[in-house]
């Protein structure tokens, strides 16, 4: 789902038919907690409150259980994210190869700190756990594409080229 659709879904009333389908698929017990939250985040790109409330109303999962899980795992986001998500790997190999410089360079190019979202909701910058592409360190993921062997200027160029041609994935 792209950003526009996700925004649409997030602002309209919570789709209860969709949730019922997910409940049929994953069940209504505690076991289903993580897969349900993953499904909601896949659809909305974060965990909207209405969705969390709806899950608790229709399952045996209690609000403390659900929020406990949502706040424990790094994958889950309670706040909306930008159209493009930049994940800068902070694994060991990337750390020794200059991951910090990538975060700084992107932070400067976008004008937001690590974890921040640009005002126009275009980009969210986030340093994340190891992406497992260590031999191409330092790496980052721009949405679902991985870019390796980066430096300050190459990293900044990724977002700059994206800003001028937002529908095209940058070449590398």
């Amino acid at each position: 789902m792209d950003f526009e659709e996700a925004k649409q879904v997030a602002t309209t009333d919570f789709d209860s038919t969709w949730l019922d389908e997910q409940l049929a698929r994953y069940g209504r017990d505690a076991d289903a907690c993580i897969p349900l939250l993953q499904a909601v985040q896949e659809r909305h790109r974060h965990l909207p409150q209405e969705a969390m409330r709806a899950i608790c109303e229709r399952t045996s999962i209690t609000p403390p259980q659900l929020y406990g899980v949502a706040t424990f795992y790094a994958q889950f986001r309670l706040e909306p994210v930008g159209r493009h998500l930049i994940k800068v790997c902070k694994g060991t190999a990337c750390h020794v190869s200059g991951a910090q410089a990538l975060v700084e360079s992107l932070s400067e190019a976008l004008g937001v700190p690590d974890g921040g979202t640009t005002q126009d909701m275009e980009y969210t910058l986030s340093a994340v756990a190891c992406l497992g592409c260590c031999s191409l360190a330092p790496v980052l993921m721009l949405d679902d594409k991985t870019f390796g062997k980066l430096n300050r200027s190459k990293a900044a160029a990724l977002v700059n080229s994206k800003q001028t041609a937002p529908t095209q994935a940058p070449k590398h």
Partner: protein
Amino acid sequence: MQQSNSAVKRVLVGMGTCGLAAGAGQLLDALRAGVAEHSLAVEVGITGCLGNCHAEPVLLVEHDDGSRHHYGNVSKARLEQLLAGHLRDGQALEKLLYHPEQHDDPEGRFYQKQVAIVSRKFGHIDPEQLGDYRAHGGYRALQMALDAGPESVLQTILDSGLRGRGGAGFSTGKKWAFAQRAQGEQKVVICNADEGDPGAFMDRSTLESDPHSVLEGMLICGFVIGAQRGYIYCRAEYPLAIARLRIAIAQAEAAGLLGESVLGSAFSFRIKIKEGAGAFVCGEETALIASIEGRRGMPRPRPPYPAQRGLHALPTNINNVETFANIPWIVEHGAQAFAALGTATSKGTKVFALAGRIKRGGLVEVPMGITVREIVEDIGGGSDSGLPIKAVQLGGPSGGCIPESLFDTHVDYEEVNRTGAIMGSGGMVVMDQSSCMVDIARYFLEFTQNESCGKCTFCRVGTKRMLEILERICDGRAVMADLALLEELADRVGRASLCGLGQTAPNPVLTTLRYFRDEYLSHIQDHFCPAGRCRSLCTFTITDACTGCMLCVRACPTQAIQGTRKQLHVIDTQQCISCGACRDVCRFGAVEVRPHPRFSSGVDA
């Protein structure tokens, strides 16, 4: 040797995550288009990881007679040459080959000392085709196991000497025996694919390159212990591995390898994937079980061990990806063949993810007993920067740094433990002289402190206090008493924490203190970071070796470097933020580390 008179049959592109990041997807598209355009009668396919990530993207050309030709760094221009040459006339292009067989060629040494058990089918099969796996002997071990019976297979695993490849190194056979003996109608097998160690990608590569080998290992385990269900707990950060596992499970179900009466036997087994949600502590088995049950991934005290009381209180056996991938080979080739490799207490092979400041990084599988030096120098070819190698970090946040002076240490669970590091799951990150060991210790503590689940005080508070001390050292605010406090905390956190995360969290600190104490002292007493990483404790200066190439001038993020072409460049220390960007780009070694002006002038600003 590389010339062959037979025709080209199939061309495979290495499509692991690393390959894709290096452009394998575009290469595959261009190859398909090129083959169509040139009307070539060759099959185009994909394969997994070939290990030589440093040469990505890679391409393999297979001939009718079974000969294989391996090309690395396949750019668009090189692909054009191959389309016009090798793929048309069947004559290998010597100059473009990645030379795995030629051991006198430096790159050839990458494969020379490797032994493939886990990675035996990587690069030979399309990971999305069950037929390919079976054509290469896949699921033969499962049939052999079903014919031999659980007791006989268990004895084989015990005799092989296989130990858990997730890090702790417990005997796999003994673990299976506990689960087999446990009372219960229903039992569970879990594959731990929550490869959370930063700097490790062995399990990702295995799942992406040969997912069926892991399913087969789990099936054999389920048959031995009497389980009906299996779960693969895989990191959500590995979307490609999950996608290929889903394909593999669906194919195995359709072929009667998973589900009711496996291969027509009385044994039934199903496998489900559970996606992790990003918590390092879930690598710990009791936390992993809590996560599958839909709770916060927090560990609980053992005993009872999962073999007695695991998932939903059922007897459960948990092994990691690499352990399971070894099983079919052992069943097929026998315990003796496996035990013939390695040392007295560590048998078989170990897969390492070789990364960091290394020339030939990638996935390497070596026999136990090989030395760290052989891996770093012969296989890896030394540092990529040309600077001397200082240490390797083994075992991620639970492990430690082995200094260059101990590189003759053999890869063996006990021998590695004696250095203060651990074998771990296989992350091996190489550090050169530009890496600051205090910064590395701080980096790992930041990681474990962040990932601590918060259940026990020593881990939750202790790692936080340790991190604060390390931050003070890196900032130049520490005093000598901090060092003693750091050591005391390291000892207490290690002894008083409940699970492996807290127990091993001090290891990176303890090993760097043991082998690189002079760096700590330099930070605290001289307010100087010799590696030039800790920004508060260094600055940079340009020496006469400067040729005036302007590279650093352009690289500097604060425009602190003055210079014109062919004139010696100068760094304005007032504007310099000590980021080291100039040193990283300089090709002439003209940028040197100096004490920060704040401290070198003797005035603490």
